[in-house]
């Protein structure tokens, strides 16, 4: 129910802040999405869409954190093993 899916914003349509929409590409499936809660979203950004509404924008810099964290904990484990 709280599912939200990331998709690429391909165009932004004009509109007042509450009804501003954009077209979002979900790997080839295109949908019109409300952008009222993602005022910062620009074309090419990935927005997180729930129930037809963008509830956020994916932070590109943070997206690699899952792998960075894994590298950090693996590194510290290796160091522990060598102690």
């Amino acid at each position, binding site marked *: *129910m*709280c*599912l*939200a*899916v*990331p998709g*690429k914003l391909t165009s932004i349509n004009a509109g007042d802040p*509450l*009804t501003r929409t954009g077209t979002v590409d*979900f*790997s080839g499936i295109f949908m019109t999405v*409300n952008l*009222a*809660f993602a*005022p910062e979203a620009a074309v090419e950004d*990935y927005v*997180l869409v*729930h*129930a*037809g*509404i963008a*509830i*956020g924008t*994916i*932070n*590109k810099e*943070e*997206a690699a*954190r*899952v*792998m960075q*964290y*894994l590298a950090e*904990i*693996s590194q510290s*484990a290796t160091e522990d093993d060598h102690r």
Partner: protein
Amino acid sequence: MKYIDEYRVPRAAEQYVREIRRITRRSWSIMEICGGQTHAIIKYGIDRLLPKQLRLLHGPGCPVCITAAEHIDQAIELALLPNVIFCSFGDMVRVPGTSSTLLVARAAGADVRVVYSPLESVAIAQQNPRHEVVLFGIGFETTAPAIAMAVQQAQMLNLKNFSLLSVLALVPPAITTLLDDPANTIDGFLAAGHVCTVMGYREYQPIADKYGVPIVVTGFEPLDILQGIHMTVAQLERGAATVENQYSRAVTAEGNLPAQKLIRDVFQTVDRNWRGIGSINQSGLALRPSFGDFDALHRFTLGRSHSQPELRCISGLILQGRNKPHECAVFGAECTPEHPLGATMVSGEGACAAYFRYRQQKIEPGGSIKDITK
């Protein structure tokens, strides 16, 4: 798909599992709040990869599951009124109320329409000015902005034929209710990522402080969940109890401020009855008086629901993490997704439906359960 497939790499998952095993010294029970996380855990078998000392408890974060039968009875009564078009999310139409479902009401002639977005119900109201359009507003903080937006758009469009039956619920009061229970065994939480995309996570720190539990905001893909578990176990093993954010690509501490503002503008908090758990103080969202014209409970006079709990169903215990689905005597036998006795078997995110779908468990004669995938 980008930002999905990267978090499903088996080698990285194996490495995460090794690291979790490496740091786990004692026994811990960790609850994932969100039904979407439960679904992923069971689908990918994450619980089976963990060391034996770690127990994952499935939480109450499934809006379909916790919507009280009395509210489904109200929805059915509204849908059966002449001239009403009743709009609902798809999952909700099959959930049993006291004695019926919205799907049965539709078969009896009610105009029940499944919508993907609450905004569709506003368009339906515009297109059908001679009908009353009622939206069944279910969900948690993730969905509240979309429903608030539907109401605000209806107000801006001056629609006189649109109303909302709000049963929106809030997650943090449910967490404190679980922790206040003397029988509580939860040591740490994976908080629901998309709830926090909207709300941020500052409201969780006082809970972590008061109850001494780590709370890690966690995403929904396998690597997200494994990292969330690692972060939680790392805190537990070193005796820490703070809020951390695993899902930083989609969650900030302050959350989505425009969405929060609209929620506050449109809704006020009220007590809410959670199916299987009972009433939780200030855990629901109802329309503010300034939006009273859009409240279906004001617009229509409804009878009183006499909901009786289904005695054979233990979904209340399952939603509190006390029991696992296969510990229920009727699981997979009298209760299946085709003939559900409780909401946890109806919703795709319900723990019972997830176990039924992915675990292929069957009841052996005498009530013991054999997992035929082993």
